[in-house]
């Protein structure tokens, strides 16, 4: 069974790029275009990993991460922030909000999968 990854991202190009890479590497990708949708999807899909953009409309990635962490059913799902935020403290803020990892945009296609997969508990393949 394919691992499920939920990608919460409002930018279509990024969404397409990451989805393409992940699917090419055999993952089932669920997309959410805003924070609330992402939280809802997480509850229904119960993904193996969540990729979370920080700069989102209505509700930013930090808030989404915090809310996800309040749900005991979802508490164990690793969350990796993917953001072009590059100012001081962004990484720490993301970790503090409940994220497990932090990938800076623009992503490096050569290392992206490695960065993602290190947060997955184990690999089937």
């Amino acid at each position: 069974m394919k691992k499920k990854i939920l990608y919460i991202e409002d930018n279509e190009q990024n969404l397409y790029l990451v989805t393409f890479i992940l699917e090419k590497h055999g993952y089932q990708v669920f997309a959410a275009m805003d924070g609330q949708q992402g939280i809802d999807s997480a509850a229904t899909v119960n993904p193996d990993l969540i990729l979370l953009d920080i700069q989102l409309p209505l509700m930013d990635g930090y808030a989404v991460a915090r809310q996800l962490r309040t749900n005991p059913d979802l508490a164990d799902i690793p969350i990796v922030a993917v953001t072009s935020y590059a100012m001081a403290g962004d990484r720490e803020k993301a970790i503090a909000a409940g994220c497990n990892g932090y990938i800076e945009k623009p992503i490096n296609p050569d290392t992206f999968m490695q960065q993602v997969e290190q947060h997955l508990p184990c690999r089937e393949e």
Partner: protein
Amino acid sequence: MNSLIVNIQKKYFQNIAVACYSALFALLTFSCFAETRPANADARTVSVGVYQNAPKVFTDEFGKPSGIFIEIIEHIAKIEGWNLRYVSGTWAEGLDRLVKGEIDLMPDVAYTSDREKTYSFHKIPVMSVWSQVYAPRGSGIQSILDLNGKRIAAMENTIQLETFTRLTNSFGLKITLIPVPDYKTEFEMIAAGKADAGLTNRLYGLMHARKSGLEDTPVMFDPAPFFFAAAKNASGQLPEIIDRHLSELKKDPKSAYYAAMKRWTSEDVQFKIPAWLQISGIVLGIALFISLVGGGVLKHQVNARTRELKLINQEMEQRIDERTLTLKETNLKLHAALEDLAVAKERAEAADQIKSAFLATMSHELRTPLNSIIGFTGILIQQLGGPINEEQSKQLGMVRNSANHLLSLISDILDLSKIEAGQLSLISEPFELKKSILRVVQSVRPLAEKKGLDLTLEVADDIGTACVDERRMEQVLLNLLSNAVKFTEQGGIRVSCVCEEKNYLICVTDTGIGIKDVDLERLFMPFHQIDTGLSRKYEGTGLGLSICKKLVELMGGKVGVKSEYGKGSTFWFTVRGDIGDEHEYFQESPMHQYGKQKNQSDPGSQ
């Protein structure tokens, strides 16, 4: 002729001076004996008796006869061409000698009809003198009645005593008379308490009473005229000659007679102000004069100074007013300036926030399109989307390299902006330096191997934990290492790390193109890539080394380079070791809150 004057003011008597006349004289008749030296009228030599009754006649301190009578007779003698011979003795002896013819003239003899029988008198009196009773100070004698029962000292054979005796008898007074040879003895006896009072003439009294501690009483009597007495049977008309001269002398106020009278009565007889009082008076007078003059001068000066002060005061007030006005204006300006400053500060702070926001936005907005470019280029090159030919792969590789270069440019500019804005935050935590170095070296190894370069690592055994911002340290090392690879075409690169006191020294040595000495100075300045003529060959923003320098310095270390042109370079920097002084380090560095991940520290991004 007898008169008694009681209770008359002393000053009155002083002013009267010498005036009056006494008449009665109990003449003692002596038997004449011894040698007779007849006084010859034509004789050149005139003998004059001298006794002690200053200031009328006396012997001065030099033994020279002196006094009013002496001066007058000397004046006459000078004109007449006489030789004067003085014979000293007491009053009684003098009279005796005159009777005997031993002397020609006896001065200071009061006229009486009795004496007229014995001596020859001229007609014009030399002077008139009052007699007066003298007593110790505070004797309480106010009238002749107070003399009852007293011991009175007096010179014998004087008209004075004769008159006094008659007076006291007529008042029924009981007097004990103490005869004395002269007035000096008399005053000494009174002063010694051997007599209660004494008789003298006023001239002598005025002159000597004060010295003897005596004072004159109001009991004054018998003003008597005094003459030169000549021997009765003497020839030569001495009385007539004397009268003639006295007549002349008394007509002329400037004559020797008046000069003598003035000298011996007015001056000496006048009440003498004690020397100390005179000196005091003079001093006081001078002081008064000086103070008056000084006062005037001072007053003038004070007035002048007061006017000056008033002027100065007005000037000062005016100045103060002006100054106050200026101060008010300055104050207003200052307030305005402060307000401006506050506004400027607000603006600056606002601008700073805007700048921060701008940096964040720039970072995001520039990276988002780059995300697509790099991402899609990457997946195409990886052929995730399908196979591509070699030419396409080469072209896509160029796109990827340019995109990565653009990304590093953006990152460098953002880094530098943050550093210069003081917004770069560093997080210092102990970490294992060796592991960190190894990680960076491994990330560069593919590039080095690609160029056929040896990449060696020499880390000393005693390298432990460092305590700086790990990612920033890695950024620096990566930058230096990337440069080394970039500028070295053959040979190798060696990375070494040794411990130096509390710090670690990390060196990156290459066998590259090297750097000219002239370029070394500017090497760490921003936007400076040495013009090697190969610029286009070597990509780079020229910001790398300046960022390295600033980062190392922010972390409390140093950075430097040694190079030989054409042979290679060694770049080095120091890293603070974790030697239990984190606290100190935190204090030194204002930026220690948080670090952040950087592209350069990501091995895959280069």
